[in-house]
């Protein structure tokens, strides 16, 4: 680093310190600009002030990793929280790049050549920080997506007990290989755990059945059959029945029913349970007067 570089650095650092309030106010303004019209917490000022101080500290100890890592931690926190609150990448990036704009205004007002030279060096540092922010932002977003996918997988595959020895799996949403695997494993394990001999797979919530989905359903039924349980597929809507026949999918000897109620009635009958409606009997109670 040349002596000239050093002087310009010191000059800019001096400017940063002297005009802290001014830069901060402007920074908050710039970073809030794209958010106008939306509910934004006033906490931004405090948040940015903290980052600003960390930034100054990291400039101080240019070689010490302490200040820099603190600054990065703060930036990561900022982008994480913004990602979670549904901010767009631009809104998050502006929060960092806005600092450059704010500082530039101060440097320009100062009008010193040293200041401008130092500003170029500073802007490189800020670019670096901006990239880092963006990186943490997308990492946070990816993590959110992964978490949601997992939650969805857990949410959408319950195995419920309808009766002693009868299980039901209400499927909601499109069936892909990953989900079929989860459903299959869960169903088979529950069959073992509860000793159930019948399982009803209800596809009322499956929007469309193509050859692949049918293949997955057949696999599940076959696996259950191998374990000694029989499966009934229910909830086949008219359009789906039409598609299945048009595609030429062969369900073989698998029992299919139109509604879950039909499937329950069938499985109850198969397992030897009789359902009868109670005869309406009227019981009259009268108090005899003594």
């Amino acid at each position, binding site marked *: 680093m040349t002596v000239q570089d050093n002087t310009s650095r010191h000059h800019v650092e001096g400017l940063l310190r002297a005009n802290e309030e001014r830069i901060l106010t402007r920074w908050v303004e710039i970073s809030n600009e794209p958010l106008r019209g939306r509910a934004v917490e006033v906490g931004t000022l405090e948040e940015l002030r903290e980052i600003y101080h960390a930034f100054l500290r990291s400039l101080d100890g240019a070689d010490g990793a302490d200040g820099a890592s603190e600054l990065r931690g703060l930036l990561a926190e900022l982008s994480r929280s913004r990602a979670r609150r549904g901010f767009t990448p631009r809104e998050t990036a502006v929060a960092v790049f806005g600092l450059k704009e704010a500082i530039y205004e101060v440097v320009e007002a100062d009008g010193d050549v040293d200041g401008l030279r130092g500003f170029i060096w500073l802007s490189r540092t800020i670019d670096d920080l901006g990239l880092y922010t963006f990186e943490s932002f997308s990492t946070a977003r990816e993590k959110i997506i992964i978490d949601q996918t997992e939650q969805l997988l857990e949410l959408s595959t319950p195995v419920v007990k309808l009766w002693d020895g009868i299980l039901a799996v209400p499927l909601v949403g499109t069936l892909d290989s990953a989900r079929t695997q989860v459903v*299959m*494993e869960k169903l*088979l*394990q529950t*069959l*073992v755990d509860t*000793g*159930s*001999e019948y399982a009803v797979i209800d596809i009322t919530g499956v929007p469309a059945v193509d050859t692949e989905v049918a293949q997955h359903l057949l*696999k599940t039924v*076959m*696996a*259950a*059959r*191998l*374990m*000694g*349980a029989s499966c009934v597929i229910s909830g086949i809507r008219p359009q789906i029945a039409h598609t299945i026949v048009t595609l030429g999918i062969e369900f073989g000897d698998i029992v299919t029913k139109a509604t879950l109620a039909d499937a329950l009635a069938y499985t109850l009958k198969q397992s030897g349970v009789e359902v009868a409606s109670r005869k309406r009997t009227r019981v009259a109670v009268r108090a005899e007067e003594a």
Partner: protein
Amino acid sequence: MDRVPILKIGDILLVSIQGDLDDQAVLTLQEDLAERVVATSAAGVIIDITAVEIVDSFVGRMLSTIAGMSRMLDAETIVVGMRPAVAITLVELGLSLGGLRTALDLEKGIALLSRHSAAFSAAGL
């Protein structure tokens, strides 16, 4: 490799496979079982594979072969206690084992066999 024991309960033969089988043991079991079915004129064979954790296509085919063999000798074969992982593996291997009857556990297997033979005797066979 020691042999898989074949136990007789009433007119049912019970084969309980403990642990994973190698190919030689599978072949020995097939021969032994055919002989015992003839010797005892059993009405049913129950193969308990609760303890089997790993299957390959060979074991899958063994189950089909035994079932076919026993049927020739007029004995119904029921495979009981298949683990979920095993069932998934067999399906992925494309072995649906058609013609093989299965039950969740030994108790249900015996119940299934007795229902079967009851239906048979009711038909006067």
